């Protein structure tokens, strides 16, 4: 069974359709890249996986989104529980204006964990997983806003990881960062896929090629092509895909 799957998924903002008949499946412990021109629906699809679109007025969803076979839009699904299982990292680093420690501990407190020693252990683990521990272990009580942009983004990754999700959604996580920070995030993604199923939206072809196992190319709300990343970049079957990955449009 695939970890995450969509079946004939349509999505509307009010009366305008943003996603058309998307059917795709993502395997456990793989990295999937979503590429495509601006406005094609990548972020919209990503937000469907943790039901963040629920926060927007006037949306409509048709079809199914399945996580380990269960439809996450079934009536009795606990949305908060789902979001703990499906972590998200945003385009612009958005750590809370609290201490580094409190940022990572946030999800644990949401989960009602009270024991300080348990929280400390899991904060440390999450910071190690996000390759930030060595840089911040002596300044855990300092404000997260004093970190660099790249560190802040890895802190946001740590914050998401502390919830021990099984899926990690990343919407252009490196687009606001310098090349060195970007390289660190990419390295991190490579390591994280051992434990997590990762979906990353990116505008950088090189990034998609470097970090992902499979790549999905979207165009105007449609899934044009979805295949092994190598195939998408070297031997795509659709002309649209060829044009996009070679930079001829988009």
């Amino acid at each position, binding site marked *: 069974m695939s970890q995450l799957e969509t079946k004939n998924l349509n999505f509307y903002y009010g009366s305008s359709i943003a996603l058309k008949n998307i059917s795709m499946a993502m395997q456990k412990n793989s990295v999937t890249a979503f590429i495509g021109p601006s406005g094609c629906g990548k972020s919209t699809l990503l937000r469907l996986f943790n039901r963040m679109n629920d926060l927007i007025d006037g949306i409509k969803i048709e079809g199914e989104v399945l996580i380990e076979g269960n439809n996450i839009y079934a009536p009795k699904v606990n949305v908060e529980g789902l979001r703990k299982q499906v972590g998200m990292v945003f385009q612009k680093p958005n750590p809370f204006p609290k201490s580094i420690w409190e940022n990572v501990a946030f999800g644990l407190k949401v989960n009602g964990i009270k024991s300080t020693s348990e929280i400390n252990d899991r904060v440390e683990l999450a910071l190690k997983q996000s390759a930030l521990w060595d840089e911040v272990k002596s300044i855990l009580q300092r404000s997260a*806003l004093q970190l660099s942009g790249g560190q802040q983004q890895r802190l946001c990754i740590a914050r998401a990881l502390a919830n021990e999700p099984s899926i990690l959604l990343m919407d252009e996580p490196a687009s606001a960062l310098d090349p060195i920070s970007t390289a660190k995030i990419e390295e991190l993604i490579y390591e994280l896929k051992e434990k997590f199923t990762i979906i990353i939206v990116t505008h950088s072809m090189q990034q998609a090629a470097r970090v992902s196992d499979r790549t999905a190319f979207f165009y105007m709300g449609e899934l044009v092509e979805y295949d092994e990343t190598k195939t998408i970049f070297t031997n795509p079957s659709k002309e649209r895909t060829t044009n996009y990955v070679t930079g001829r449009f988009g």
Partner: protein
Amino acid sequence: MNKKALTQQIIFWTFRIMSIMVVIVLFAILYFITIRGAQAISWDFLTKSPEEGMVKGGIFPAIIGTLYLIVGSLIFAFPIGVFSGIYLNEYLKDGKLKSFIQLMTNNLAGVPSIVFGLFGMALFVNRLHFGDSILAGSLTLGLLVLPIIIRTTEESLKSVDDSYRLASYAMGATKLYTIKKVVLPLAFPNVITGIILSIGRVSGETAAILFTVAAYFLPKLPHSIFDQVMALPYHLYVLTTSGTNIEASRPVAYGTAFVLVFIVLVTNVIANLIRNYFNKKYKA
């Protein structure tokens, strides 16, 4: 100097002079009040009741009365105002109902305080039989400052970046948890501004307490919330307009004004300290 730089200079100095003028006016008032009022201040003045037709003695009951009214009105207005602000900004979707409530809040803020006084008398004093009392006065003053607290709360919540809310939801936090643990702490320093403004308003208000709580002369302290109290602004009004010997009571009047201004300044300073503390705690 070329023409552009000259224009810049002129504009710069215009702004500077305008803002300096504000400071000058404030200091002029403080200077005036201090020069005339400070000499009236003594231990007895602060701790004794008025004597001999209010030209002697102190203003202790009025100080206590004003403090009671500040606390009393905030007990009503603060929770109601903050909850309304939260409801308006966090729960109510943009639309007709929201615009209507906002419009009404603004209208309420524009109603003259004497009208609040009349309303308070009709409803709290007479209809609900609270009589002229701390309770009736606090409720009336509470209504008066409610729009200030609602509006500043709403504005402070609006200024909290949405990305923090989204981050919290994405971590599996509920809406209530997000408001409590993420949004409110960030908005709180600015919410305090609403309280500062309210305290200033309540402590200086005369018309709203005239028919609802204020006593002309009441040398003893209140025993319950159904008692009347003296209050500084009203006492000042009485001293300057209707005392038995207005000239002789001038020093007491200025002393009263001095104490009133002092209370407002001190509460402002305290509120600012609280605000800075929370600002430091949550910002870099």
